[in-house]
């Protein structure tokens, strides 16, 4: 800590709370409060109820939640494999090749997600690769959108990884594949876990590209939330949002447990 004075430290903590709470915590609190209400015309929500959750835990919403979780799992696993592979290749390239790879993987982040969605829609709407109207195009869109984050976090971890581990493994007679799977990847495990969590969370919340692509039998939860609020069912939508939030947090918490266990070894 740079600041030792107790009073100053308290003041800084108070300032942080003042800035943090309204910006981050309060909106989330409002959603939770709204999800238990039927109306909100005064300062506080009114008409406490659990009806919203009755809808939220109805078959349609649970199906949407399942779709979201499956999509996010598929997308984050694909992104992790592709991103790690690309980061490992980039690390073995020269500085020029690495710059090209970095730029390439920045592209889906730099381009608006709506554009990514549209691009996929246009590209895969006619043969030879006809994906429009299938689950695959949703998986594809999510993977394209989150791979950049996986690539970036694994890349950053790789530059921090001391090359001496790989060299010692090689001197002991381990071929590159053995070194990769038994030494380098296990050492990267904490970062891989963090990258998976990030990709999962991003995919769980993805709406704009999904809106353009989802087939009727594969509707992720954010689309349901949007549909609910679009037709004015704000409080039901809030309950959906809370379910989405809780599920995402739960999965990320589980992933962080894996991560800390890996880090402790």
């Amino acid at each position: 800590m740079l600041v030792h004075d107790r009073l100053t430290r308290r003041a800084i903590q108070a300032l942080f709370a003042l800035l943090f709470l309204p910006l981050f915590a309060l909106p989330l609190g409002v959603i939770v409060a709204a999800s238990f209400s039927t109306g909100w015309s005064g300062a506080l929500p009114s008409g406490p109820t659990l009806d919203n959750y009755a809808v939220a835990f109805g078959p349609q919403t649970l199906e949407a939640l399942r779709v979201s979780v499956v999509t996010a799992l598929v997308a984050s696993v694909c992104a992790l494999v592709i991103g790690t592979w690309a980061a490992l290749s980039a690390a073995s390239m020269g500085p020029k090749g690495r710059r090209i790879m970095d730029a390439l993987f920045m592209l889906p982040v730099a381009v608006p997600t709506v554009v990514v969605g549209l691009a996929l829609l246009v590209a895969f709407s006619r043969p030879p690769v006809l994906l429009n109207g299938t689950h695959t195009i949703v998986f594809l869109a999510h993977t394209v959108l989150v791979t950049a984050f996986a690539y970036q976090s694994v890349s950053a971890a790789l530059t921090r990884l001391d090359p001496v581990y790989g060299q010692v493994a090689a001197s002991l007679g381990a071929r590159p594949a053995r070194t990769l799977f038994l030494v380098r990847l296990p050492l990267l495990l904490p970062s891989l876990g963090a990258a998976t969590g990030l990709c999962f969370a991003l995919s769980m919340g993805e709406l704009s590209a999904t809106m353009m692509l989802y087939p009727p039998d594969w509707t992720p939860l954010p689309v349901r939330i949007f549909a609910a609020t679009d037709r004015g069912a704000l409080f039901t939508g809030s309950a959906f949002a809370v379910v989405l939030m809780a599920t995402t947090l739960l999965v990320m918490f589980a992933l962080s447990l894996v991560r800390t266990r890996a880090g402790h070894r």
Partner: protein
Amino acid sequence: MGIRLDGVSVSYGGTTVLDSLDLTVEPGEFTALLGPSGSGKTTALRTVAGFVRPDSGRVHLGGRDVTDLPPYDRGVGMVVQSYALFPHMRVERNVAFGLRAQGVPRNEVASRVTEALEMTGMGSYARRYPRELSGGQQQRVAISRALAIRPKVLLLDEPLSALDARLRAEMTDELARLHRELPDLTVLHVTHDQGEALTLADRVAVLDRARLREYDTPRALYDRPRTAFTAGFVGSANLLPARLEGDRVRVCGLELPVSPEDLPAGTADGAGLQVCLRPHRIVLGPAEHTLRGTVTDLSWRGSVHHLTVDVDGRSVTVELAGHRTPPGPGGAVELGFDRDDAVLIPVGEEP
């Protein structure tokens, strides 16, 4: 298995880090690569390990050209300064890593692991994780891991630099013992610590600014340095300007007799030379040759006193052991030395 480097040159982005290095290490020999940082000693070791591809020149291991061989096919053990134990594996798995990579039969691995750990006295730590060990213990495991694959060549890259003084001394003894117990093992040891090099090595290669300056036994380097760099880097040295006049060398008003074999090759009559005098070889009082001067500084270093004496405007350091009352600053002293203790070396550095 011997090591032979033939004209090995390495440069990074226009900077030459190793300039045409020729070095032969005989089978079973312990050779130290000694030099300051940036001298190219680590690069030399890495060309042997296979992590650095020489721009030109060849690397031979046991008579076989391995220049184009990847590190994992060279069969050399390596121990590095940071230990680089795999943190996610227990000690036994670390040591077994190379055995498994080389396809040693499963039932043999366990006994070879035990054997390698016993060699460094780490047998009872097999179930520990590296983070549960001290620095010295980790380095012992790293040595066990390198020796488990029974390499013919062991590369040590500043293995003791991360340890404190007491542990370093302990590990130096340990390495000396391993060298005695494994007479067939060829060792290349990179270090910037002259003490380590002198204690452990059969021969020492002194590198400076990408070049091999001298390659000889520690004794010869210490007693008969042939360059000013070696004289100053291996032990400490007083270097006094001198001149060859016929069969004598004139230094600080003294005349030392010389025979042709004392002289650096190609020294012409009348040419400038340097006389190297080791501080601990100088005694107080007259001897075969005697310099006169005034004490300018005295410092106490525990077992010895360091005396700085001004002789004809040159500062001469003297190391005195066992003097209770050495002369203090301002005192006039006589510094005696024997002819054998004065070594003639050429002026300046050769290119």
